[in-house]
């Protein structure tokens, strides 16, 4: 809402500096997003008449102009605009003047021609948004006249106020002024002419309301003797400053009243209204209507229509009028509609027809149900002043159950309890009375508070507490800390999730965060099943579904990095994935997943990362079990097990999938359900004694048939070695033609005893036992 300061001063004597007013507004929750001055800095600009124009001898983009600036002499100006000719009257900034934007005008030589000033566009003067050419003024103006005098410009300041949805009263100049007056402690009044006399159900125009639930109050007033023409400068200027385009005096009065009092209203040309009456009804199924903006719109039974007396629609109630009965140059008789529509119904209609207007915004937030008469009276007063209109007979006022403002109990004790203040009852009421909240003491510091009709957002004690806080000043409330008796902390899951990040970062991986959204194609390209939760109203196809896997996002990241010559990037991500809900559930299954993607690395590298992670988490029985996994290389993938349950998958991304993503080389992959992974059994962090006696290493290399997992051999070794085995590690792998379908695997076994140094004999026996165990259980032989 753009609010001119001069307009605010119609209601309250605000003498503060504009910057202080802006800061007061922000402190009241009417946040000022911008402040503009208008008509300032124009003191030196004068009216000039163009005498002649001619091409510049040395430049195409400018012309040479002679003007008369009031002294009858030809003054030469070089000008870059071509939208005028001899005889036109234009604004001139003479040498020595300064424009509102700060530009200093001097005598300049432009490619050999002298320019003695500058002809100005509306934008350069800060008067209009038209920057395309020089502003053309009324031809009757005398050269030399000061521009401000010629145009009747009054310097003003405009506050651009962001009005929150709970403050419909502040969608009016009067409402903003009321808050400011209370803040500065100055009187406030809405100078309201009396409402037209003799309101009743009948008058010079017929009114039938068939949908009183949607339209609890509808009034119509007839004004005759109207002369349509332009509005006076003061009104046009205020409307322009408030962001509305002046149209003609009657339409301008309508907008002026809406901006001033917050009551939308609509003038009809009564002579173009068949049956000379208005009917309010629900729209019919499939009905359409052409609105003022020349768009044909579909309406239905939940929408309220304003119709002529014969039942044809002339406007969508509270949203936009129709084109058929628009005010035009020939209008002489006006029927003014001012009504109160159901806010929820207007909100729904506005959303359904896709039209948000100044009127619909006000109605859906709630206009003052007691303000219709005041607005009608103001309209009549202004229409008389600017269009010669006079009211014809009694106005028609049809009502059916307007909402009544609330009355609530407000306890000073409760106010202080909630705000942490020590306000007295007198202070509480001193904040409320000036904004129209009538406080009647009921004892013990309690009040009965009558909420004013223009504050439909206030209906409970707590809402009044906010008003007290607002006018007391949020920044005036002393800062305290809540007493906290609990100990803060993370859950074990949250701590472990951080540990996972630490381990992975420690082993060289960086963390990625991909978007949650995917296109349907992304799943096919990644070799994944197409079962996914769909987004109902995505803005782009790339946002059609929610990711069921972290694979597509990480592959995209690897491909993008490869494009920057970084094919070897190692990433991990932790994030929610989404699977369709099981029968009977409303929400998707939404586990948190961990995934690791290793650019330029094979499945073995992924396993190495998994080993680091499993060791860091102290997992017991962590392992892998060969299996085919969607999206992964069929012979280089495995299920990941922890404590005997499957917690994820590991391997290498399928070459086909990599090709589809334009990735050369291999990509190692590991994924896990983080909840399952962190829920798996872990070795407790309990001290295990370490031996005081020296340990001994035995290296054993076996030629093992391909097809026998190394893990199987390792298990045999561990079993055979028994409790003196301190450490077991695969340290060498060798393949060669002479081994024919087998490979050599070498382990280092470290032995130690808790109670003595192992003897040569014992070690020899252990060695033999290990060898026997392996060769007995597997197609393997000791490598010589």
């Amino acid at each position, binding site marked *: 809402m753009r609010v001119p300061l001069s307009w605010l001063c119609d209601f309250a004597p605000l003498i503060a500096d504009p910057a202080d007013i802006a800061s007061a507004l922000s*402190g009241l929750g009417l946040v000022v997003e911008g402040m503009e001055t208008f008509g300032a800095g124009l003191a030196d600009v004068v009216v000039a008449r163009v005498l002649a124009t001619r091409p510049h001898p040395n430049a195409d983009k400018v012309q040479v102009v002679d003007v008369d600036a009031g002294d009858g002499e030809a003054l030469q100006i070089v000008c870059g605009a071509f939208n005028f000719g001899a005889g036109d009257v234009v604004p001139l900034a003479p040498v020595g003047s300064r424009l509102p934007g700060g530009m200093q005008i001097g005598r300049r030589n432009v490619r050999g021609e002298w320019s003695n000033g500058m002809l100005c566009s509306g934008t350069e003067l800060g008067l209009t948004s038209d920057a395309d050419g020089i502003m053309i003024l009324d031809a009757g103006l005398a050269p030399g006249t000061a521009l401000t005098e010629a145009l009747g410009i009054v310097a003003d300041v405009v506050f651009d106020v962001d009005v*929150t949805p*709970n403050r419909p009263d502040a969608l009016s100049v009067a409402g903003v002024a009321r808050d400011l007056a209370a803040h500065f402690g100055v009187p406030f009044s809405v100078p309201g002419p009396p409402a037209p006399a003799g309101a009743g159900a009948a008058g010079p125009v017929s009114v039938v309301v068939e949908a009183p639930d949607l339209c609890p109050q509808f009034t119509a007033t007839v004004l005759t003797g109207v002369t349509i023409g332009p509005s006076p400068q003061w009104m046009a200027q205020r409307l322009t400053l408030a962001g509305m385009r002046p149209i003609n005096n009657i339409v301008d009065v309508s907008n002026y009243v809406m901006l001033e009092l917050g009551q939308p209203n609509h003038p009809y040309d009564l002579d173009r209204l068949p049956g000379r009456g208005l009917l309010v009804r629900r729209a019919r199924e499939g009905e359409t209507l052409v609105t003022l903006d020349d768009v044909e719109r579909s309406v239905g039974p939940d929408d309220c229509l304003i119709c002529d007396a014969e039942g044809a629609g002339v406007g969508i109630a509270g949203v936009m009028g129709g084109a058929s009965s628009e005010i035009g140059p020939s209008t002489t008789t006006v029927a003014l509609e001012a009504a109160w529509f159901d*806010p929820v119904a207007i*909100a*729904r209609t506005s959303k359904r027809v896709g039209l948000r207007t100044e009127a619909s915004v006000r109605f859906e937030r709630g206009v003052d149900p007691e303000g219709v008469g005041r607005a009608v009276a103001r309209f009549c007063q202004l229409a008389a002043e600017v269009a010669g209109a006079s009211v014809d007979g009694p106005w028609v006022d049809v009502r059916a159950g307007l909402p009544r403002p609330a009355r609530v109990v407000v306890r000073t004790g409760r106010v202080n309890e*909630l*705000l*942490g203040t020590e306000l007295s009852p007198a202070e509480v009421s001193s904040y409320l009375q000036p904004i129209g909240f009538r406080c009647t003491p009921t004892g013990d510091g309690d009040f009965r508070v009558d909420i004013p009709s223009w504050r439909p957002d206030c209906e409970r004690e*707590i809402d009044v*507490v*906010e008003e007290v806080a*607002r006018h007391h000043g949020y*920044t005036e*409330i*002393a*800062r305290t*800390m*809540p007493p906290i008796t*609990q*100990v*803060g902390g*993370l*859950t074990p899951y*949250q701590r472990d999730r951080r540990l996972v990040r630490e381990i992975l970062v*420690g*082993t060289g991986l*960086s963390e*990625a*965060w991909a*978007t949650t*959204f995917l296109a349907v194609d992304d799943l096919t390209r990644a070799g994944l099943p197409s079962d996914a*939760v*769909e*987004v*109902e109203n995505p*803005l782009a196809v790339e946002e059609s579904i*929610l990711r069921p896997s972290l694979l597509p996002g990480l592959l995209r990241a690897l491909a*993008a*990095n490869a494009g920057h010559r970084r094919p070897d*990037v190692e*990433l991990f991500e932790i994030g*929610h994935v*989404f699977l*369709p809900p099981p029968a009977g559930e409303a*929400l*998707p299954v939404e586990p948190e997943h961990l995934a690791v993607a290793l650019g330029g690395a094979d*499945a*073995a590298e992924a396993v*190495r*990362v998994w*080993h*680091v992670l499993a060791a860091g988490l102290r997992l017991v029985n962590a392992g*892998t079990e060969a299996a085919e996994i969607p999206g992964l*290389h069929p*012979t*280089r993938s495995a299920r990941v097990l922890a404590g005997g349950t499957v917690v994820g998958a590991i*391997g290498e991304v399928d070459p086909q999938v990599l090709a589809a993503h334009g990735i050369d080389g291999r990509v190692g992959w590991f994924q896990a359900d983080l909840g399952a992974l962190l829920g798996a059994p872990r070795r407790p962090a309990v001290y295990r004694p370490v031996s005081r006696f020296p340990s001994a290493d035995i290296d054993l290399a076996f030629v093992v048939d391909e097809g026998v997992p*190394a893990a199987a051999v390792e298990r045999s070794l561990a079993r055979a070695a028994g409790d003196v085995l301190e450490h077991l590690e695969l340290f060498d792998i060798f393949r060669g033609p002479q081994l024919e379908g087998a490979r050599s*695997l070498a382990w280092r076994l470290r032995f130690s005893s808790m109670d003595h140094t192992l003897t040569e004999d014992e070690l020899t026996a252990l060695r033999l036992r290990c060898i026997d165990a392996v060769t007995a259980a597997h197609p393997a032989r000791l490598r010589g």
Partner: protein
Amino acid sequence: MTDLVDNVAAVESDGLARIDAAASVADLRAVEQELVGGKRSALAALNQRLGQLAVEERKEVGRAINAARTRVEARIAERAEHLAAGEREARIAAERLDLTEVIGRRTTARGRRHLVTQARDELEDLFVAMGYQVAEGPEVETDWYNFEALNMPPAHPARSMWDTLYVRLGEAESTLLRTHTSPVQIRVMQSQPPPIHVVMPGRCYRRDTPDARHLPVFHQIEGLVVDRGITFGDLAGTIEAFTSAYFGPDIHSRLRPSFFPFTEPSAEFEISCIFCQGRGCRVCSQSGWIELGGCGMVDPNVFAAVGIDPEEYSGFAFGFGIDRCAMMRHDIDDIRHFIANDIRFLEQF
């Protein structure tokens, strides 16, 4: 002319035989090149000889050449698919790896936590030190948790403050991507009685076209305190405490009235501009203040939705963007860096 037709037949049958004999996709591509690939190929060479023929003959031979080309190309495509499948099968079989046969990982470099994680962890730690627990919730929510329980019944005008993405589940617009972390407040209050001191970080969504300042996915952290005797002054003190702790002791906060359906009184909180220390600059539009988030006292209707007596308990809530904090702290000009995963960005922090 018959001569030429015979030639076409010979080229075709020879070609088909060679296609069938190709042992690999690479061989096949070579054969393809010789038969149909470009001006020097066998069929193209025949085409060039058409010029020597009379018009009628030219048509007939031309048709024969085209038919032969079609058959040859079809056979190539068929063979290519067969060979590719075979090659894949052979490759897959040849590449079989025993994933238990792996020697330990050796790394020297350390990676980086994502910047959003770093900011989130730091904020969590700060609140944990103030005595808060950390709670989380689902990103796909029901309308009830995201709107209705937060004092926004169906068709409430305030719903338009959020551009909501819905998912295609259940009745129309019944299930959505949470527009804020506030549904977690509801879940926490349903699951435990006061006193409650909790922060709730997580990913949120809005229907928005990506640009330097907006992404459809973003991260928020929200706080909730519910106990006997909690005041608006406690809210202001808490905001001051964590903003100074996170942004530095010279940075201060202020509250000003605002509107959120789930709090009353509601406020926006601002911090003194971290770029100009409150002197006024382009970033803060010369105001010296930067808006950070929203807050307020928990609305009694929200307490009613979870069965907490607003006469006995009161509480406050606040929320703000994690991404934005990280952007301000590290002078990042485009939020899209956060999901691009460019290692040259990730490695900087």
